[in-house]
């Protein structure tokens, strides 16, 4: 059973602050009119230029208007210009953007032609000419004129959003469900455009206020139909209010304008989290906290390393109680949980696990390359006795590549796209071995390519000029150029076709043999592991649940998970009923106590749900973390009948769709 996951709260300080500021301004302009007389803002009602006093709270201007009253009536109208402009601009922009994005071809071309044309027109200059000729325009006329020029901005943003959404698979599914194009647009596409619309609306309001204010301040809005903050500034400027030192005249409207823009700014940056959720938690304060935590964990690991047991003489690499935690908004996630194993020199070891089992996290941590939100909380990784988790950064840098190297997943991203392959190897050589003669360098680079079966002239090429298999080899060449003693290969062939995969793996195999290096292969394919490794570790929910020679795991796995994983594999030797592992993969957040596999295990006992099984060794050279041992010596046979969903077992399925059987 799955537990409902709570969506992380998207309310943030910026959003609240923005809403509070704008809310306060709106509330102020709604309530204050009850207590004041609108006529006070008429020309000549009071004597001009009175300093603030009990009657005229903010004094009067040079035309005898009460400044406070004027302000109270001007602020909402400024907002109104913005909101109306925003609404018109966004409605038009949405219509055009959606049409252009969803119906490619002719409609898209026309919309793009018009909007590109409009963007090329300098809006302010155009409006200056256009609006200044109007006779006493109303708010709506001003808003409409501005919106006519600003809609292409939102139209473009919305078009590109719709364009990506249109290609989503659920759109194809909707069509297969018989939904017509317009319905697809409104029912499937539009709900996902909504967050963007909100953000665009704030932007359009902001633009509307800004543009209207620019026109007003310049005196280009010849109107007596409304008051606004921009018009107030215009009169200040026109009548020399600043020169006369009338701070109570120019100060309040400018302050209010600043507040409005600040409110909108906060609102839109707070809104960004909805449109672009990855931004959450990347603030400066979060970064400081993160840096402090990394230091704290490092100090703790250093303290622990002082009292550690002596290293195993036989092992080249020893991992002891490695723990990696991901800090997430919903709480800490134990991605690697007390993992221990060791590798002998020249050994080929495999680490297998499904997505989320922590295999890549573990490998990255072993190189001490974990980046926040991942933290290595404790553990030791001893490379020939030196603890990589606690040595100084400088020493660690020298060991990487030279002693221990990693071939990362997705090789295409691991290479620098703007650097020739040869130069990338050269860099690695210079960093670790200092400068050398040109001839020596050429020789080393050629050697590195030779090791991975690449012709030497590949060095002159850029990554994009190589095929997937060649890129993978190039990444390997960089990793082995310094002849490391340990190579961590993280799914080195996951993006390759089987034929190329076999070639790359055979190259890795030969390389390993020639260098005498120990290799840890990380992956999810048991077949590939079988072909390559001597010993295999099985990860489940961040725990190393079994560790043994690969043939032992294949032939008689001790952990129920390993056994069921092997049973679920299709083979080429015989057709068989495919049995999957029932239930859900583990949710690492709030993992219940006890064995993480308990909810899916056919042998589950009460104890399994309460107590985490310790690693034990029921047979020499093998490790397993399961409560069946030591009372058992081997895993009992799987109750296969119980594992096939009842309804999939033949003959039990109700004939729901007799029509489809009969045919026409």
């Amino acid at each position, binding site marked *: 059973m799955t537990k409902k*996951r709570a969506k992380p709260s998207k309310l943030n300080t910026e959003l609240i602050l923005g809403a509070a500021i704008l809310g306060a301004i709106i509330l102020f302009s709604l309530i204050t009119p009850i207590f004041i007389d609108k006529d006070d803002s008429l020309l000549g009602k009071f004597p001009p230029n009175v300093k603030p006093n009990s009657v005229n709270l903010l004094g009067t201007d040079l035309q005898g208007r009460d400044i406070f009253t004027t302000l109270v009536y001007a602020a909402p109208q400024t907002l109104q210009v913005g909101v109306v402009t925003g609404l018109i601009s966004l409605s038009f922009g949405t219509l055009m953007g959606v049409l252009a994005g969803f119906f490619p071809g002719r409609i898209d071309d026309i919309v793009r032609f018009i909007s590109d044309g409009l963007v090329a027109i300098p809006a302010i200059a155009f409006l200056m000419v256009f609006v200044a000729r109007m006779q006493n325009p109303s708010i709506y006329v001003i808003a409409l004129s501005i919106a006519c020029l600003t809609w292409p901005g939102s139209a473009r943003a919305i078009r590109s959003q719709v364009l990506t959404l249109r290609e989503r698979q659920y759109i194809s599914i909707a069509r297969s469900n018989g939904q017509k194009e317009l319905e697809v647009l409104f029912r499937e596409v539009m709900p996902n455009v909504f967050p963007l619309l909100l953000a665009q609306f704030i932007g359009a309001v902001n633009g509307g206020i800004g543009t209207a204010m620019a026109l007003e301040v310049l005196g280009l809005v010849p109107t007596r139909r409304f008051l606004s903050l921009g018009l107030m500034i215009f009169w200040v400027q026109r009548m020399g209010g600043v020169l006369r030192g009338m701070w109570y005249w120019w100060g309040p409207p400018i302050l209010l304008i600043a507040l409005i823009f600040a409110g909108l700014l906060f609102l839109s940056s707070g809104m960004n989290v909805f449109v672009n959720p990855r931004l959450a938690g990347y603030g400066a304060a979060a970064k400081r906290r993160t840096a402090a935590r990394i230091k704290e964990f490092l100090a703790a690991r250093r303290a622990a390393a002082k009292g550690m047991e002596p290293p195993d003489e036989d092992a080249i690499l020893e991992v002891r109680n490695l723990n990696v935690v991901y800090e997430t908004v919903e709480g800490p996630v134990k991605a690697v949980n007390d993992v221990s194993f060791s590798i002998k020199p020249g050994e080929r070891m495999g680490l297998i696990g499904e997505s989320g089992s922590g295999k890549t996290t573990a490998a990255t941590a072993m190189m001490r390359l974990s980046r926040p939100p991942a933290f290595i909380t404790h553990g030791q990784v001893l490379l020939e006795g030196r603890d990589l988790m606690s040595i100084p950064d400088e020493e660690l840098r020298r060991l990487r590549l030279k002693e221990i190297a990693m071939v990362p997943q997705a090789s295409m991203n691991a290479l620098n796209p703007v650097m020739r392959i040869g130069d990338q190897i050269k860099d690695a050589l210079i960093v670790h071995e200092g400068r050398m003669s040109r001839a020596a360098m050429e020789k080393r680079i050629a050697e590195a390519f030779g090791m991975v079966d690449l012709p030497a002239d590949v060095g002159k090429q850029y990554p994009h000029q190589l095929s997937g298999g060649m890129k993978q080899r190039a990444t390997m060449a960089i990793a082995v150029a310094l002849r490391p003693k340990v190579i961590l290969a993280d799914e080195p062939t996951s993006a390759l076709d089987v034929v190329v995969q076999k070639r790359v*793996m055979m190259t890795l195999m030969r390389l390993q043999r020639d260098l005498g290096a120990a290799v840890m292969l990380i992956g999810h394919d048991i077949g590939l592991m079988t072909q390559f490794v001597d010993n295999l570790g099985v990860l489940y929910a961040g725990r190393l649940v079994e560790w043994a020679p690969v043939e032992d795991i294949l032939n008689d796995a001790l952990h129920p998970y390993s056994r069921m994983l092997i049973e679920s594999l299709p083979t080429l030797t015989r057709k068989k009923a495919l049995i999957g592992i029932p239930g859900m993969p583990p949710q690492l957040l709030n993992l219940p106590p006890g064995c993480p596999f308990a909810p899916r295990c056919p042998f589950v006992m009460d104890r399994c749900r309460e107590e985490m099984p310790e690693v034990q060794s029921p047979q020499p050279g093998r490790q397993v973390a399961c409560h069946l041992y030591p009372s058992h010596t081997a895993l009992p046979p799987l109750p296969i009948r119980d594992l096939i969903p009842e309804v999939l077992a033949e003959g039990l399925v109700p004939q729901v769709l007799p029509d489809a059987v009969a045919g026409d």
Partner: protein
Amino acid sequence: MTKILETSQATKIFKRRGGGEVIAVDNVTFSIEEGRATTVAIAGESGSGKSTLSLLLMGQHEPTSGSVRYMGTDLLEMNAREKAQLRREIQPIYQDPYGAYNPFYKVDHVMEMAISHYKLARSKAEATELVVDALNAVGLRRDETLGRYPFELSGGQRQRLMVARALICQPRIIMADEPVSMVDASLRATILSSLQALNRQFGISILYITHDLTTAYQICSNIMIMYSGVVVESGSVQQVIREPKHPYTQLLISSIPLPDTTTRWVSLDSAEEDPTMVRSSRETTGCRFAPRCPHALEMCWDSTPGLYMPDGNRAVTCFLYRDTPVLESGDVSEVFDYAS
């Protein structure tokens, strides 16, 4: 016998930007017949043309030459009603079980849409019954899946829901394009069994497009191996996979890493020994596989092999078998095994 879906010498050529062209699907003829529901794997590596072929079959690409027909009507000459029928009766299942759901809705949405648009139920109760029956057919329980958002379900559950959705539409053919390649190994088996169950229990033909021959072998009766747009070998999976005849099929099968310690790969001392390497840089106007073929004959370089039938339920596009009978019609489904 009427043919439900058929291609006749279908060819799709894509123009490359900056000149040149790629023949993605080259002269493929095959059919799925009424009353002979089968499971066919269309297998090949990336760039083999298997996905392009599936898009041709669903009418999402137009063939450059040749034709694709559904119930006897050319896909290019269909009226709106026929198009709607095609859309309903060939149901897709895609690779990505995450992208197949609109994140805005609960997973029930895809089922409700199918039922309401195809008018499959007269009442709410009837609709629920349809959904529950379909869930049962793919081994899912209602209380574990319905009423949830996609992110609350596992990849395996989501993919089986997609199978259930396809079933609700009452299709004749399900086109499953790599339906398990993005799902964890432990969850794959149940998805594949549910596809198999649909074929056995409802007589729906399954076209399984994949690069993975082991799953193809497990769930399909027949297979078409594609290389560079050409169907190089076709027939019953038992024959094609267990005793491959085409040098490419042999290479492909020998490259699969099997979970079996008795057939382990050995490391080679030089690239020359490597059977998977490209052997020749010579241009070929004949068999596309000639440059990589260890058995290439002189004739392979300039003439295109036809379909030969060396034994039983199998056709091979290879001159090594030129002394065996020729499959005159070119229809690779003629050699399919419908008994198993």
